[in-house]
């Protein structure tokens, strides 16, 4: 029994098929990329400034993560990602933020700066 408890972390690894894992990660990344571009554009058009822009991103992030959790994984993230729900909520946050800033700045500039 004790051996089981110790080895459970490494033993579970073979239950995940790398190909499927990669596909899941890819699907999530696509959703994330779309989120960054669209929400950044929305924030720019709305003219959000200062911390409101980042707050908008955070809200959208939580929303899309929850949607992924609910629709794509049917509330069973353990089946799709090694890290479970943690993976869904944390992976790619910073990379998405960079894209978000780009689109936010771009659309904000186009709509509110140049007349």
């Amino acid at each position, binding site marked *: 029994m004790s051996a089981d408890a110790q080895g459970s972390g490494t033993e579970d690894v*073979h239950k995940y098929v790398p190909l499927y894992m990669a596909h899941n990660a890819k699907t999530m990344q696509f959703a994330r990329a779309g989120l960054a*571009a669209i929400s950044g554009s929305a924030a720019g058009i709305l003219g959000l400034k200062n911390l409101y822009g980042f707050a908008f991103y955070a809200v959208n992030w939580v929303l899309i993560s929850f949607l992924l959790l609910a629709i794509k994984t049917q509330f069973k993230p353990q089946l799709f990602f090694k890290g479970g729900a943690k993976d869904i909520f944390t992976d790619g946050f910073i990379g998405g933020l960079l894209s978000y800033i780009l689109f936010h700045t771009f659309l904000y*500039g186009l709509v509110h700066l140049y007349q």
Partner: protein
Amino acid sequence: MPSGVFARHFCTSLHLTMATLGEAKQMILDPAIRDWVLLPIMVVMLLVGVLRHHITVLITGTPKKPQLKAVRESKALMRGSQLRAFRNAIPPHAFSSRKAFLTEAYDQGKYLKNPNAPKEGVPAPNPMTDPDMMEGMMEGMKKQVTNMVPQMLIMGWINFFFQGFVVIKLPFPLTLRFKSMLQSGVDTRDMDVTWVSSLSWYFLNLFGLSSVFTLILGDNNAAGAGVNDMAAMGGMAGMASMATPGQPQDFNKIFMAEKENLMITSHDWELESIEEKVLRKYGKSTGITASKTPKSPEIKKELTVKDKIKAAQKAKKRS
């Protein structure tokens, strides 16, 4: 359009702003800057990314077929780890015979690429002499070059043509420290830090476009900047650390380590007490069956494994 026109546009817009900076803090940029600086930089970076992706695909070509012996070597190693992973799914005699076979094979180096090569103590061969290693190194160099050159070119292009343009305003505040970085080439002391120059716009694009590339080129594209690679490495740390190009692996040592791992692996067949496990799973276990769960055999098994290791070490010392 000659660059002199840009400069005039820029100056007039700046003049306007300086006059009104005091009361309204409103600065209006000339639409020509948008049309001839902001959008071109973004479009060019996007297209260069796409181009780079396709060039990388072309250069990389089809992966070279590995040698038969090399494949056998790595697969033999994989067999050991598979046996360790699925050890409880096979009956004890099957496990022990596999274990015995594999440990012996590892020990004698049956599956080594060149079993007659000198064993430990001899320094690893020069990677330059092995054509396989050369190939791997060249692959890395190619990727590096295709990474670096376009970025340098674009940066030079922007520095040459668009230096000193105030291009856009960031929608969030920054501290004054960023001024020298974001407004390089724009010598105005009083301008807000959030107005950034064309070079900053370039960097914003460099880091931000990776998700756009993901959308248009697919997941494993080669278009993104270094950030993309870094993120990939972070995600697949295991894969990155496994394949260190240019470092010849000493498979003999790895085999020995795998042998050691196999030796200390204990076996606990899952079908051994399956009736009790099933009963317990559905909450039907009785006191009698629960008390009957084997504890002592396991301890005994551990001991035997230890003994085996000790015996092996003794044998090693003797030889």
